[in-house]
């Protein structure tokens, strides 16, 4: 039997969820969307930290210039988007796996990250499209009277799953192997006006500041409440109040940031440091990717004919 201090009130001794992430303490409850928001906020921070760690490893893609990577990513994305043959898409996907390996991402980690996303957003949408009532055609797997899975439906579903998986893999490769500050400066290579780049960079920075603020508000609320929560209605009121307060904080912060910028001689035009030059490896990389993209599209057309 556990020792129990004589004067401790009962509520202090009742274990409350949230003390330990593995839920070994306290009762397991379905998380409300308040808890889910906190989890989401923590997830954003964790993901960003994880990305920075991966981007710091010494792999193939990490060594390349962000601009070269962004341009080549767009070329390959376009090729994947133009491809109409599953074989070509499968080849492009295999290429992303090789690149992930060469960039020391960990194949299991990389594949899991892509394929956790694909079934959730694509599988569910694509499944009804295989049936004859969405995509009419030659029925290959009859299910009921005059309906079933059609050849055209299955082919279309395979095509879209392959294309989404390839596209997501390409984007994940870029985001995982590039520090966001480099990625941001690479936007200028696409002729995005400097003002937009500045806004995007600051927004990215303050996403984390606001995430921390949300996290603090929700954690403070959790720390203040004892016993069961006031129900979904109170939770919703709290979410709305937090969002409203967050807007106030964001606006006050923008005023502070503006004053700080003006104090540091900001006069309405953003200035950037001089650009780094692309070296021959970067140019070679862009060339290889462009050639791959062109070959993929040409091969696709040849197979189609």
């Amino acid at each position: 039997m556990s020792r129990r201090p004589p004067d401790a009130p009962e509520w202090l001794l009742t274990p409350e969820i949230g003390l330990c992430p593995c839920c070994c303490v306290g009762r397991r409850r379905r998380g409300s969307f308040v808890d889910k928001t906190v989890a989401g906020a923590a997830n954003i921070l964790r993901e960003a930290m994880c990305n920075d760690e991966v981007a710091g490893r010494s792999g193939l893609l990490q060594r390349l210039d962000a601009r070269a990577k962004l341009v080549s990513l767009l070329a390959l994305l376009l090729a994947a988007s133009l491809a109409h043959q599953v074989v070509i898409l499968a080849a492009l996907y295999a290429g992303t796996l090789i690149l992930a390996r060469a960039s020391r991402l960990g194949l299991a980690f990389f594949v899991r990250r892509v394929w956790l996303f694909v079934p959730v957003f694509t599988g569910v949408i694509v499944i009804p499209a295989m049936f004859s009532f969405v995509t009419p055609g030659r029925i290959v797997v009859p299910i009921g009277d005059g309906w079933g899975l059609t050849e055209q439906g299955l082919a279309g579903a395979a095509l879209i799953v392959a294309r989404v998986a390839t596209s997501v893999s390409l984007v994940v490769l870029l985001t995982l192997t590039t520090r966001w500050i480099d990625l941001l400066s690479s936007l200028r290579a696409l002729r995005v006006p400097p003002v937009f780049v500045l806004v995007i960079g600051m927004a990215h920075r303050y996403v984390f500041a606001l995430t921390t603020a949300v996290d603090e508000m929700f954690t403070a609320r959790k720390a203040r409440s004892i016993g069961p929560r006031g129900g979904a209605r109170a939770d919703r009121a709290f979410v709305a109040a937090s969002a409203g307060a967050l807007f106030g904080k964001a606006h006050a912060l923008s005023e502070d940031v503006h004053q700080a910028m003006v104090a540091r001689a900001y006069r309405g035009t953003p200035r950037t440091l001089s650009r780094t030059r692309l070296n021959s490896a970067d140019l070679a990389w862009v060339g290889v990717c462009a050639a791959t993209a062109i070959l993929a599209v040409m091969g696709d057309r040849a197979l189609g004919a």
Partner: protein
Amino acid sequence: MHIPDGYLSPATCATMGAAMVPVWLTAAQRVKRVVKSRYVPLLALAAAYSFMVMMFNVPIPDGTTAHAVGAVLIAVLLGPWAACIAVSVALLIQALFFGDGGVLAYGANAFNMAFVMPFVGYGVYRLTAGRSPLLSTRRAVAAAAGSYVGINAAALCAAVEFGLQPELFHTADGTPLYAPFHLSQTIPAMALAHLTVAGFVDAALTLAIVTYIQRANPALLRINHADLDPAIPRTPRRLGWGWAAAGIATMVLLAPLGLLAPGGAFGEGAPASLDLGKYGLSAIPAGLGRYADWWNHALLGGYGFAGGRHEVLGYVLSALVGIAAISLVVLALAAALGITRTRRGRERAPAGAP
């Protein structure tokens, strides 16, 4: 509603992206003019805020998730142009840094959520709120109504973009190359999800947030409503020329839809094309035959050039000439009746007064 890469054809993505470029440039000009050098941090924080609002996810039965986009909320708080940039930046951060929504499909996502949604929603908000006081319930309800309509308009756009894919892009044997669902399936699916669940999520969140801000920090509402003092009810303002021009421009853009309708307008055809049997006639009435063609000196007869050359150009030119002619007649009438002169005189009065 974030469309990932792979669902839309590159042609659709390019079209939507091209449509957004002038919107972004105009938005940047407008916002810069209003808030001067303060606009960079303001938009950055608004974008970060928009990103946070999108974190509130609600799963809906069809497998996707609905989330409050918050574009209309930001349009109510900061104006639609600022909301356009803020949501665009939030979408870009999501696509590039967090893999939510496609990179090629970014233009389409921005069109739906950063252009259609804040502008439609803000329009509904302005119409519903009227000149009501800043802290009135009507204003909060108007913001919620704007959210509801805005998110549904955006969902409709997304549904049309999806639904056009199998019609436009398929192989010879009917295999869809991109999103597989037809318009008759995407529009009801998106409408059902957004009319019943997502619309209410967004509207309820907007209502609650605006009500909270009205109660706790009304100064925030004055950022976009500097002309509205909560205490003093304002006299109704004249509608400016800009509104009239916008209305006419909308009608001009929508007018070609009439070409899609079957049949012709009753009583507008030439006598020769009259279905005489239908009206119990045996011949074209003599008076109709005589007077139908007495004037045959029309500049652009049949809304086109003589001989039917350059059909589209002729049609558009006819429209422009028609609008210009009607505008001139109305202005001339107004000048004759002294409407414009009176107004100008009234404006000048205070300056000349002793």
